């Protein structure tokens, strides 16, 4: 049988989901499928863009369907190709190059774009958004925002709905001042009422976001071609240097309009998700209008895709979409909330049940109409939300005792809740996974959270339901969910914990990374495991470690930090931030001689020469004549300090001298994560020693406090006081003992702030200070041997370790080229 041609315009979540459903309904035998995607990527989870923006997820982690998925399913994908026109009468779609693709059935899943409100001056003369103004819809938008946020001081987000708040959260992580400008008098006015909106406002303020409510933006202010601020209708204004617009969505309907389909707010469909004008054209997602509703959430989209698939494949021609009742459960700015139906009672017959505990950020409100749930808002505590959402969705009668709707009274909560949850209740709203699907998956032998998530995708959308999925897995396993073994492996390709791997490596004398792969992985080399193994072997073997450079990240092959243009940064050693005229003069000469494009003081009190090509590194190091600063690796980085006792009126201890001693002892040491240290001459902590991996603070009486596990990067944590000692020697000994214990026990890339929290300061103090397990002597010896084995790697300038170590592009002899017909 000749297959029908199915063309899908749009490769976003709706288009790809519709195709997945069609394949699941056996559509592969029926259709040759061609998909057009506007963006040059595969299909990604738009809900997670804010995670990409705040850096908690890499863009690669949010892709839903990878390239092989399209090939495996014989789908012809035109990524980055925009469809320009639909010829309904010839049944052909044309792309911008004029190339035609015929269809028997067509699916329009063009989604939506950011709605840009009428703001004077927001567009360039050529109709594009002004430089410094961004929508927030696509991966490209997201990347552009991140790029701009790096240099922006003040960012304004127009729109205080869900997406706007997510954008604000993302911007915060880039260190700019963030303002949210919202038209309504409360945040997320679609989902929240006054009280819950106010609680969310408090949470936002606590996070450092400034919120401007009831503000109508009228004009964009531009000075010298750059964004300078926003003007509001009430005459006030807000200076800012970048603007993110997240004021709602506008369905992409131009193609449908031009093709003569009925378009109101979006493309009007019937109950089978077909255009009401053309039964060969289906519409799904944010560009579809069904019974007057246009949905911007994923759950309705999944339901539409399912109906569409059953109908288009003729598996069930009676399948109908009857609209969705809107219920959302999400996490915004770290606050968990759920909202369904109406947010305020409509008449006095509507019964309102509320509970509020603002101090703890808990708020629950139900609106009951004729004994059934008409709306609900829950903030902070979502323990009953599964039951409520189900009851809202089905419109089933509620129990008379309203209290039990808000709280679990007595009885073990989870069990009761899960028992009363029906089998088809949706647990993961992002990926449409039901309670039964998770149960089936567990019955099929997948008895860990990770396996269930991998197989069903539950919890892999926004992540808000992950806790519930985990509890459900445990529930279906009868409380016997299995530990995920791979989580304890040091590297994914070898089924051993770090401790076990160290024992094997020692026992079998494996001194090189390739030897480990040969012995334990049949010689198959996993690139991502190489640096982790190199770190472990360096820690175990010290001077006897066989340093195969290919196992090292590029930074550790050429001893500099790679930049986005492939050049490197050079940071010479400068312990405690101490320098002198001769060093500064040499640095200045290097900057001139090699035309160094950027010279920057670092957060670690050093001088960074940025933008140096690989070929120039050896010459630059030679001219600097300073030791390497190790500012590139998973290693001891630096120790900064305040000015200490000689000049400071408040100084209690010689912090500068101690910083120099610390740096001399630990420089060049491989560690699981980077180590940043500081010393402070008094408890005022000018050098920020309390937020360092190891911080040493002088206190009255000639004593020093040692703090461990502090951080002030993407995560902020005050270090825990390990102990107070009375000499530099004791500082070096005990901090060294802690560092060695961390080297031997932390996972690769596990920073001390995670490690210290994981083990607990009491346990660490018992081990390091009280020597409860009798490890001290061994740790001290290992640290001594390790420090003796370090050397200045910049000396490789005169003795390269590998052929062409500092060359990027190798020359080719021209005479050796031959052509063949």
């Amino acid at each position, binding site marked *: 049988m000749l297959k029908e041609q199915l063309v899908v315009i749009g490769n976003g979540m709706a288009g790809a989901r519709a195709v997945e459903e069609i394949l699941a309904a056996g559509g592969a035998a029926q259709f040759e499928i061609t998909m057009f995607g506007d963006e040059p*990527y*595969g299909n990604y989870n738009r809900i997670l863009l804010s995670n990409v923006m705040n850096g908690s997820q*890499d*863009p*690669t*982690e949010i*892709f839903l369907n*990878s*390239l*092989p998925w*399209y090939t495996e399913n014989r789908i012809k994908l035109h*990524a980055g190709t925009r469809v320009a026109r639909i010829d309904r009468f010839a049944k052909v779609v044309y792309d911008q190059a004029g190339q035609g693709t015929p269809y028997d059935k067509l699916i329009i899943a063009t989604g939506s774009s950011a709605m840009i409100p009428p703001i004077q001056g927001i567009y360039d003369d050529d109709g594009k958004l002004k430089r410094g103004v961004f929508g927030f819809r696509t991966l490209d938008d997201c990347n552009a925002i991140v790029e701009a946020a790096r240099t922006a001081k003040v960012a304004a987000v127009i729109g205080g709905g869900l997406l706007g708040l997510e954008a604000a959260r993302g911007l915060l992580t880039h260190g700019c001042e963030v303002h949210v400008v919202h038209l309504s008098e409360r945040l997320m006015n679609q989902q929240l009422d006054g009280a819950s909106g106010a609680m969310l406002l408090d949470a936002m303020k606590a996070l450092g976001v400034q919120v401007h409510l009831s503000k109508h933006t009228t004009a964009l202010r531009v000075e010298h071609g750059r964004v300078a601020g926003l003007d509001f209708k009430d005459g006030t204004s807000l200076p800012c240097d970048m603007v993110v617009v997240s004021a709602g969505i506008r369905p992409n309907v131009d193609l449908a309009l031009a093709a003569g389909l009925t378009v109101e707010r979006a493309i009007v469909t019937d109950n089978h998700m077909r255009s009401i004008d053309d039964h060969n054209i289906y519409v799904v997602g944010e560009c579809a209008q069904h019974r007057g509703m246009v949905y911007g959430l994923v759950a309705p989209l999944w339901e539409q895709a399912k109906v569409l698939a059953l109908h288009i494949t003729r598996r069930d021609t009676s399948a109908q979409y009857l609209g969705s009742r809107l219920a959302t459960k999400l996490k915004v700015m770290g606050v968990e909330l759920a909202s369904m139906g109406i947010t305020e009672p409509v008449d006095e017959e509507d019964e309102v049940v509320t509970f509020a505990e603002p101090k703890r950020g808990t708020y629950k409100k139900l609106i009951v109409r004729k004994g059934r749930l008409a709306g609900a808002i829950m903030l902070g505590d979502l323990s009953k939300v599964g039951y409520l959402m189900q009851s809202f969705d089905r419109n089933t009668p509620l129990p008379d005792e309203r209290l039990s709707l808000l709280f679990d009274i007595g009885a073990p909560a989870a069990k009761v809740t899960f028992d009363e949850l029906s089998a088809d209740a949706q647990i993961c709203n992002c990926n449409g996974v039901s309670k039964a699907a998770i149960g089936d998956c567990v019955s099929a032998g997948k008895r860990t959270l990770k396996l269930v998530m991998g197989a069903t995708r539950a919890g892999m959308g926004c992540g808000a339901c992950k806790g519930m999925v985990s509890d459900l897995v445990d529930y279906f396993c009868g409380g016997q969910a299995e530990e995920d073994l791979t989580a304890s492996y040091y590297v994914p390709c070898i089924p051993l914990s770090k401790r076990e791997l160290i024992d094997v490596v020692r026992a079998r004398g494996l001194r090189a990374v*390739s030897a480990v792969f040969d012995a334990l992985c049949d*010689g*198959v*080399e*996993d*690139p*991502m495991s*190489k*640096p982790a193994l190199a770190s472990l072997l360096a820690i175990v073997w010290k001077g006897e470690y066989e340093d*195969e*450079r*290919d*196992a090292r*990240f*590029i930074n550790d*092959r050429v001893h500099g930090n*790679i930049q*986005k*243009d*492939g050049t490197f940064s050079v940071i010479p050693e400068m312990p405690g931030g101490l320098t002198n005229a001769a060093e500064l003069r040499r640095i200045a000469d290097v900057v001139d001689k090699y035309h160094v494009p950027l010279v920057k003081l670092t957060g670690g009190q050093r001088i960074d020469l940025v933008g140096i090509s690989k070929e120039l590194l050896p010459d630059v190091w030679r001219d600097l004549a300073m030791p390497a600063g190790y500012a590139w690796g998973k290693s001891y980085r630096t120790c900064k300090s305040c000015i200490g006792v000689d000049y400071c009126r408040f100084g209690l201890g010689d912090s500068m001298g101690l910083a120099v001693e610390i740096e001399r002892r630990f420089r060049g040491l491989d560690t699981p994560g980077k180590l940043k240290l500081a010393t402070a001459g008094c408890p005022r902590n000018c050098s920020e020693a309390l937020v360092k991996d190891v911080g040493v603070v002088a206190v009255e009486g000639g004593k020093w406090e040692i703090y461990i596990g502090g951080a002030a990067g993407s995560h902020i944590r005050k270090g825990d006081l390990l102990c107070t000692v009375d000499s530099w020697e004791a500082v070096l000994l005990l901090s060294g003992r802690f560092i060695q214990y961390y080297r031997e026990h932390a996972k690769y890339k596990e920073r001390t702030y995670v490690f210290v929290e994981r083990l607990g300061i009491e346990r660490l103090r018992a081990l390091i200070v009280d020597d409860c397990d009798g490890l001290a002597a061994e740790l001290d010896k290992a640290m001594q041997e390790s420090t003796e084995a370090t050397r200045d790697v910049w000396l490789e300038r005169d003795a390269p370790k*590998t*052929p*062409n*170590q500092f*060359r*990027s*592009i*190798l*020359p*080719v*002899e021209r005479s*050796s*080229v*031959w*052509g*063949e*017909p």
Partner: protein
Amino acid sequence: MGRAVTARVKLGLVADIPQGEGRSYHVDARNIAVFRTRDGRVFATQAKCPHRQGPLADGLLGSDSVVCPLHEKRFDLTSGCELGGGDCSLAVYKVHVDASELWVELP
């Protein structure tokens, strides 16, 4: 015009590339990256990562794949396909070792 011509180019000695690493070459107005695995095989791809133009030759090399040093995008060296969920892909070229010499075929 229009006729496909394959050029065979001698890049140099295979020993110019350290074992388990890659290096770039400039050939016929384009840059290619050549990788030499520890088990003695060689692969050639376009030099820059399609994601953000990272230098692939500086990446971490596995038995069949390379990881870009900038954002850890991972590519299969035989097909050029991106691994791990993304869908960028690399141009790949035929490359082989002939008497310690490294030869690449360019379309």
